[in-house]
């Protein structure tokens, strides 16, 4: 990513808002990068630009040296709201991308079966999304992109809607899948523990306009123990970095509310 910039016009207030400003970021092959920032810092905007759901006002996103222009299965996205197709069964949801890309039926079935087994959905193939729990739905969403063998996995707070226990279980499973079939991943979160637990590096963002405040490499061996001293030292350090930004975001929000009154 080079010099990414995103501006848009706040229609209600008739003024320009800079959501992202000068984001420069290189992600290594098979790296797990977590992006951490206060709400409203443009994390999701950044992810949407990488996925090509939104266009950047300036700069470009390069994937293996090529500028990305359109959304595609090389950048699989897992949304916080699951975004499963409610009229399709688990199997059909996972098969969707392969079918749209006209992969022959027999091959399709084989990939889908293997993917279903690897995310622990065996026995649920014929269920509809509304019959599944949040954790199960997010597994389907993950399987749905992994089956397309994406170059990069983009996750936008995928576990934010889950309860603490399911969340922790899903984090472990995600790490399991990621270490089994190594893959570049960008994971957005506002949860410090989650960022430190998952990431090879943690990108801490500033409050609006979103810039990169600091990139922290997490050198802790995996599997990481969230109760260890080293883990908590890192967590505290990143927490302190983030705290300033949360304060700044909060102050900005207060100023905005006051000026509106």
């Amino acid at each position, binding site marked *: 990513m080079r010099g990414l910039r995103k501006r848009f016009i706040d229609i209600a207030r008739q003024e320009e808002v800079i959501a992202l400003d000068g984001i420069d970021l290189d992600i290594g092959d098979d790296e797990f990068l977590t992006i951490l920032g206060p709400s409203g810092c443009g994390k999701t905007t950044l992810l949407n630009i990488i996925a090509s759901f939104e266009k950047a006002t300036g700069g470009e996103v390069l994937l293996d040296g090529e500028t990305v222009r359109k959304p*595609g299965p090389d*950048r699989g996205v897992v949304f916080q*709201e699951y975004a499963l*197709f409610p*009229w399709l069964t688990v199997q059909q949801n996972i098969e969707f991308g392969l079918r749209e890309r006209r992969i022959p039926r027999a091959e399709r079935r084989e990939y889908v079966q293997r993917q279903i087994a690897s995310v622990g959905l065996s026995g649920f193939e014929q269920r*509809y999304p509304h019959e599944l729990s949040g954790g199960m739905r997010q597994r389907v969403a993950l399987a749905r992109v992994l089956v397309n063998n994406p170059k990069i996995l983009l996750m936008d707070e995928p576990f934010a809607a889950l309860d603490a226990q399911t969340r922790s279980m899903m984090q472990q499973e995600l790490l399991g899948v990621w270490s089994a079939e190594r893959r570049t991943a960008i994971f957005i979160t506002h949860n410090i523990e989650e960022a430190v637990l998952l990431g090879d590096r943690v990108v801490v963002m500033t409050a609006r306009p979103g810039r990169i405040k600091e990139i922290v490499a997490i050198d802790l061996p995996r599997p990481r123990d969230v109760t260890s001293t080293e883990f908590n030292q890192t967590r505290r350090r990143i927490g302190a970095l983030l705290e300033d930004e949360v304060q700044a975001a909060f102050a900005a929000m207060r100023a905005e509310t006051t000026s509106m009154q």
Partner: protein
Amino acid sequence: MTAVPVAAGAASLNAARIVAGAHLALRRIAGPAIVLVLWHLASTQGWVDPRFVPSPVTVLHALQEWMFGPKGASPYSGTWFAHAGNSAYRVIVGFLMAAAAGVIIGSLIGWFRFVSDLVDPVIQVLRPIPITAWVPFAVIFFGIRDGSAFFLIALGAFFPIVVNTAAGVAGAPQLLVRAARMLGIRPYMLLPRVVLPAAMPFIFTGLRLGIGLAWVLVIVAEMMAVKSGLGFAMWDAYYFLRLDIIIAAMLSVGALGFLSDLIIRLIGRRFLRWSRGL
């Protein structure tokens, strides 16, 4: 669901279900039964003139003769199936035309901004005009024949279908469209594979409103522009003051309308299995 103690066996569970089912059936039958009793009393106790409000028993006899009586025994005897068949045929043809046009045009309006800007204002202006106002044009262009009825029914049923389809398509969740694009869908497949399925609940609402209107309009068409069918029988019976036949025809339309709505609901239930609460 009925609350049943955990320890209860299958037998008492079944018993509880039967009791609950019987209660439900009783509640649903009670309303129509009360209406029937009041109607009967009104007619037989002289609360109203029985020549103008024939009792349910009279109506039932009239309907029986109309349906199963020997042909020629009286002007109506044995002609019910021909009339009902004519009406049903017109409803089906008109409704299918409306459904095809409504779903196709509605999808285009909901999906393409350009089509919406062009076509939607026309539809919004035509929509409030009562379909009866079109009767003279129907008769001039299609004559006193089935064509007039098809036209009036198709036109009337078209509006709720097109409006609901357009709303459903335009309101298809952006998130699902993004998900499909990210999974590599070819852009022209978005409409059939994502947007239309997402709009299905709306489309079925439109179809149900449409079939209801189709039965209203077939009667209008047959009273004014065609010389057969239940609507024609009603109008004809009015000239001879056979109010029992009119009520029998009303009940027939009610039953057939209910039946056709039920069929659409059953088809919808199959299509919308994924959608809770429909």
